[in-house]
């Protein structure tokens, strides 16, 4: 087996565009070959990351969520002990609808009432009766509810459930009712909260944002969940809704005003640094100001730059691993 000479990256499809922009620029500006950035999902990437240490394993895993405790354990079992966690910024999650349709100003409550399997009516849990947005909120037009939300494979779904549905559940007081119904079990109540209706009003999208967009094109009533970067590239077809009164933008997300967002990461296998040519340079380049800063190409493409970028740069430079030992 010939020695591998390029950095190998795999993981999240959300991080992929950013990683590929970096990889491309890295290849252009360094003497190292362009890194290979595979997509395939955060979990698949981490799985391959944790398969062990060695040339036939990947060097970097992209993830649209933080690595889980269980995964760190699995990693360690396979000998991958020193992992450098790098947070590169945030992904804003926005709600958008057809450009020529009605505009919306949502709150989490609206979404809970629109999509939950059961809602509270007069303090009783009933099957969700809402058919149109006007049923949900008197201020909304009588447009049929048709939501295209990320499928259960997507990390975005988790964020949507946590920050929108669950928040709405609590706001409407349904959470308490669920808790009661489940004998005070909070976990069960949460599970009940995030159970969505299956009557076709809420459609899981397993594909990508392009599919969500295509669905909205074929059903003008549809409202979809998108990444901020995707929306910004398709402003000619989509209009964005506000959430709790805030318009999503890189700025409003960076300040934390806009609530629905998630951090993006990549993980570096420390043992590979010094062995795989260009690995450290790639990691440093990724988080450099030129690239990941607020004026860099990543932010230009839609990444919400991390306000604590300097700290991250330092951590990468010193190869600080998770758990502290460097």
């Amino acid at each position, binding site marked *: *087996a*010939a*020695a*591998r*000479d390029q950095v190998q990256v795999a993981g999240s499809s959300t991080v992929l565009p950013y990683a590929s922009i970096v990889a491309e620029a890295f290849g252009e500006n360094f*003497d190292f070959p362009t890194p290979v950035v595979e997509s*395939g*999902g*955060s*979990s*698949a990437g*981490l*799985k391959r990351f*944790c398969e062990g*240490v*060695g*040339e036939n394993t990947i060097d970097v895993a992209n*993830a*649209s969520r933080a690595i889980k405790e*269980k*995964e760190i*354990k699995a990693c360690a079992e396979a*000998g*991958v*002990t*020193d992992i450098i966690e790098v947070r590169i910024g945030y992904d804003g999650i926005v709600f958008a609808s057809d450009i020529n349709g009605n505009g919306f100003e949502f709150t989490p409550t609206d979404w809970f009432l629109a999509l939950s399997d059961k809602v509270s009516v007069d303090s009783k849990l009933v099957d969700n009766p809402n058919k149109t947005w006007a049923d949900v909120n008197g201020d909304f037009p009588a447009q049929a509810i*048709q939501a295209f939300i990320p499928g*259960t*494979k*997507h*990390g975005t779904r*988790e964020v949507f*459930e946590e920050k929108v549905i669950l928040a709405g559940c609590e706001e409407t007081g349904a959470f308490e009712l669920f808790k009661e119904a489940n004998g005070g079990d909070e*976990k069960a109540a949460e*599970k009940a909260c*995030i*159970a969505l209706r*299956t009557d*076709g009003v809420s*459609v*899981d*999208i*397993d*594909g990508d944002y392009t*599919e969500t967009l*295509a*669905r909205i*094109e*074929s*059903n003008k009533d549809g409202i979809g969940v998108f990444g901020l970067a995707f929306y910004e590239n398709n402003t000619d077809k989509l209009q964005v809704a506000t959430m709790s009164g805030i318009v999503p933008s890189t700025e409003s997300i960076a300040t934390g005003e806009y609530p629905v967002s998630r951090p993006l990461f990549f993980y570096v296998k*420390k*043992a*590979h*640094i*010094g*062995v*795989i*040519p*260009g690995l450290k340079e790639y990691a440093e380049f990724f988080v450099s100001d030129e690239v990941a800063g607020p004026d860099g190409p990543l932010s230009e493409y839609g990444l919400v730059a991390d306000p604590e970028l300097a700290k991250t740069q330092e951590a990468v430079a010193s190869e600080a*691993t998770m758990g502290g030992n460097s």
Partner: protein
Amino acid sequence: MPTFWLVLALIALSVAGFFLGRNRALVSAGGNSKDLHSLPSYYGHNVALSALVPALALLAIWLLVQPMIIDQRVSSMIPEETISEGSTIGLVMSDVRRVAEGLDLAVAEGAMTQEQARNLRSEFSDVRGRLGEIGVALGADVRPEVLRAAQTYRTLSNTGNIAMTVMVALVALGGFGWSYGRTHKDFRARNVVEQGILALLILAASLAILTTIGIVLSMLFETRNFFSLHSWTDFFFGGTWAPNFRGDSDLSILPLLWGTLYISVIALLVAVPIGLFAAIYLSEYASKTTRSFAKPLLEILAGIPTIVYGLFALLTVGPALVRFFGQGENGILGVEWMSGATSVLTAGVVMGIMLIPFVSSLSDDIINAVPQAMRDGSLGLGATRSETVRQVVMPAALPGIVGAVLLAASRAIGETMIVVMGAGAIAKFSLNPLDSMTTITTRIVSQLTGDTDFASPETLVAFALGLTLFVLTLGLNVLALYIVRKYREQYD
């Protein structure tokens, strides 16, 4: 590249063997080929194969084993304590290999002499820099033990390569000599060659078994993990499929199985009649020119990427169906049976279109192979062509047609893109073909490529699904084999 030249030499030897063997056989028969047991070329082939096959096999094994042995030898040179924490000997070894390759390249490019490469000391020279000049990038400065290991690695590889060349050449010559010596007019060359070929045929057939074993093994382990985390009763007998990120998901195969069957059946209901009628028309009615155009054109349908079909389902077929079965008063039928564009019917129809050539092309070939005498017999009794086709030709072509349909069904079960875009991603039991549903295969793909923790049951369920599907289709295939056996009609 020595391997390349070695292979080339082997081929040359084997070609020479062919002619020499052939000649020797002819000579032993006094130039009269009729006295030979077999055709002269069989003697040639015998020598050629005897020289080539064992040598190639040895070469292949050597190429697999030598790096392992060298790795082991060299890695023993690396002191335990120099391996930094978190790293492994394997990783150091890849560094060693990279340096060794770099040195090879440097020598090849003339940037270094053999001598220099052998005696280079990292204490005294900047190895990384010198290799960098010739375009070999290294991750870090070269440590002395790595450099020394790399040099040993090179020496061992060189020795190994020489030994390999010698051994392979010996085996080749041995095979050559042995078979050449055996070449005599009474030698049963044809039988030997044919036995060799038969062995190759068996090898090819057993590859299928190996693949199956590989598939089962590559899924079994993770499936076991899954069942240790999730109850098997829920998986096999539960009624809900609802993975979520907090764990404690309902992961039952039943709704997925239902969706798989439903969509596949609809797809086959589209593909089989259309495909069969197309095949019949092409082979029994169409003119030669029509056939020679229509058949390859239909075959393009099988090659259009499924993402196109997915979009076609989502943007064209789905909305068209909605216009029929949905939209209330505004719809064509004035009913409100269908809200979204995605449905079992959408995906099934589009998948059916994709599968048309699977049925049509293969069936056409098989129907075409039914002897004309069968048709004559029927036509001579005053049957119409369609009667002939239905009652005589089709039964005779049945095994092939079943094969084609099975192929289409298999493809329908394995399809993902069309289902994702055309049928939706919600698992449910419903008889209504206008509902969205999903299939086992799409769930395998999405759970494998999703964001759930890779050690969680939500991800591992993909393996259990894969294995269960494997067993289910196995059952279906046994059934199909039984049916074909029962109804097969042999002509002639």
